[in-house]
């Protein structure tokens, strides 16, 4: 049995590094996320967001450093840490020859969910995501968006304390994207911590309590929107997240290029 100490931050990342030869995918990353917060991790392509997520969920071992979920070290106490975790990767690769219901039952069994509760939760979640008519269809007949929703249902079936979502709205229609945003907000109201990455800065700006910006494996900025705006030092409080992001990640020059091409 695991216990969740309420006073501790739900996620603690201490000086994690991930190197591939001479290449630093993640460089000395420190982060603490308390319970009930939505934290957005932003960064250009190849900045190290997915690698960071993979380290948090235990898919990759860091070269050095430590990740704790609910006080449990992901490397040394993986089972306890993973019980608190729900993960949806950027590409929802699911068992295509299982039906949606079978997949959810399978995941529930892996997380040791009580039998009656699992059935009820699976039915509820499938209905919530508009998949009730596809309950007994094989996943290989699903569209990308349906797979994404099934993966999210799988991540939620065991009521995780920490939800990690890599690009959760990619491939979803506006209605589904809105649904997911509403669900995430409700989950945080119930104390669930959410860490997500997205390239849609409007989502990050409107949904996230705090935002971290990562570039070349380093966390170069972190804070609430107000803190990020204040961090610019130019006194412009009306700057959008896009402006801040481009300023910090060096993407501003692309606007110039676009102008030249135009």
């Amino acid at each position, binding site marked *: 049995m695991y216990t969740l100490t309420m006073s501790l931050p739900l996620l603690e990342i201490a000086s994690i590094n991930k190197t591939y030869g001479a290449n630093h995918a993640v460089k000395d990353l420190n982060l603490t996320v308390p319970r009930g917060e939505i934290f957005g991790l932003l960064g250009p392509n190849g900045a190290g967001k997915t690698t960071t997520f993979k380290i948090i969920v235990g898919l*990759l071992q860091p070269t050095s450093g430590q990740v704790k979920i609910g006080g449990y070290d992901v490397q040394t106490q993986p089972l306890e840490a993973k019980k608190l975790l729900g*993960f949806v990767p950027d590409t929802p690769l*699911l068992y295509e020859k299982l039906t949606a219901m079978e997949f959810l*039952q399978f995941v529930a069994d*892996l997380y*040791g969910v009580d*039998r009656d509760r699992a059935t009820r939760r699976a039915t509820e979640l499938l209905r919530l995501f508009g998949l009730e008519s596809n309950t007994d269809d094989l996943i290989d007949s699903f569209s990308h968006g349906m797979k994404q929703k099934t993966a999210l249902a799988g991540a939620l079936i065991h009521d995780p304390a920490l939800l990690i979502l890599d690009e959760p709205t990619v491939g979803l229609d506006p209605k589904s994207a809105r649904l997911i945003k509403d669900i995430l907000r409700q989950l945080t109201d119930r104390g669930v911590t959410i860490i997500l990455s997205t390239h849609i800065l409007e989502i990050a700006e409107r949904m996230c309590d705090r935002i971290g910006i990562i570039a070349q494996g380093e966390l170069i900025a972190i804070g609430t929107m107000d803190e990020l705006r204040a961090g610019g030092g130019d006194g412009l409080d009306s700057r959008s997240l896009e402006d801040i992001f481009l300023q910090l990640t060096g993407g501003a020059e692309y606007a110039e290029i676009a102008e030249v091409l135009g």
Partner: protein
Amino acid sequence: MFPSILKLLRLRLRLWWNSIKHRPLGQKIGLAIAGLGMLVFAAFLVIISWGILQFFSNPRIQRELQQAGVGDQLGALLTQLPILFSFGAFVVGLFANFGVLLQGLYLSGDMEFLLTAPLPARSVFLSKLIQAILPNLLLIGLVSAPALIGLGLAQDYTLIYYPLVVIILSLLVILGAGLSSVLVMLVVRIVNPRRAAEVLGLVGGLTAFICSQSGQLAGSFRNVDLPAEQLAGAVNAYGTFATPWNPLAWPGLGLIAIGQGNWLTGLGFTGLTLAVTLGLFAITLTFAERMYFSGWSRVQIGTKAKKRKTRPARESAREPGGVASPTTGAATRAGVGAGLVRIFPAPAWAVIVKDARLYRRDIRNLSNLIFPIILAVIWTISIFREGSNELPPTMNIVFASSSLGIGLFMAMMFVMRFGFGGFSLEGKQWWILKTSPIRPFHLVLAKYTVTIIPPALFGVGYLIVAAILRGVTIGLLLYQIVAESIAVAGLAALTLSFGIWGARFDWTNPNEISSGVAGCLGSILAFSFIGISGGIFIGLPLLIQLVKWPVGIGYGGALFLGILVSAVGGGVPLFFAARRIPQLGEEESTQSKKVSKKTK
């Protein structure tokens, strides 16, 4: 349009070349040797077909054949071989192109990209067709053409016969491809392309396997006499095919006539062949192209997915056992007793049920599993036929034990598939298990159960059938069942440990699951393990009987030694391999190697 086709073919050539260029040096050398080997094989075919035909032209052999009553028919058959080979080229073109075209037009994923490029749509379609035809042309060039050239040399055919062989065979392959493209459109209209590819893989694998085993099956009927009349009848039936009224015989008839210098007849048949082939190809091409671009083939008919019959969630929740536990509705459906199910922890049972579903539902897995069953049928027929032969009493134990040997071999084929591929079966979905709180021990327990149950059931079933057919005593049958179970238990552990060591999660085709060093080394060790187990369970009792010791010592000693070998040979490797599970699927090793190479 032709510059566009050339551009697209250059792209294919570049992709093909890159796939060779980026291989390790060892594989490049292997490919070069294979290419050289193919050329040598083609030359060998020319010589062998020339030699065989020379042999049958020998007056003495012809006299013998005349006396057997098949001389004339056989001579005619050999002369008319071009008809058979040209028909074969057409059939190869029709069926072998089917899979390539299905892949190229519906599954490769590059059609949208190519069709949105500023290229004529027909050039894209044609380039796909050419892409499908080229490997078959190579096959024809390696098999049919050398054989027909050998025939021409043996029959002293005219010079024009030789280039014409190549032209006619190529045209027939092209015609086959044209018809095949229409066939693809028709099939895809009815069946999902991916499902069609799976079924095709199964049929192809089965055909290849049955062909490879047909010699064995034929061997079991070696005592059946084939009367000369029946042989002559078969040859005559072929003769009715090779008539001028059959369009499929025209290419061959044209080749023979031109080879023999009958120019008028030859030009007539060859002209007809060219006209019909090119005309039909143009028609099928236009037809297939229209069906493809109009989207006709993409709108499937009669394929609405059938709803799986599952009990309503509420109903299953009310039942003892429920859904999300070892005693789930799924388990009940699988027919497993609740008592047995409770042995397994919930996560392990979940993996067992999931694996059983995946193996059953992916038809590509079925093709691998069905081979041992075919072998079993072939060998059971052999046993049934051998059963009528009287053996000396001293050989009874060898006779009875041979079914244990066969049972072990068949179980090995099952175990190798399940064991080596146990972890790799997860494929790109490995992240689901990797991020879940399942204990490595539970995972090994689940995979071990999945590995051991089918071969154990199949092996025991086979032993019982063989025992009934051979009249083996109950005592000996029980010994065989226990012996087989011990060997399978050890082998399952051994193969599973190599399955963990060599697990790969990036495969797209189940045949790639157990490739690589681990699969190769594991196969060698698996064969060795079964050899040693066979030696213990069959050899030791036989040896004890030969030295006139009590039979019980032989059987008891064999079981004891067998358990020891299984524990050491299977249990120990699995114990060490299981410690690797937490690290499985981490890209560190491969990526770091690549990066290190680049930085150097």
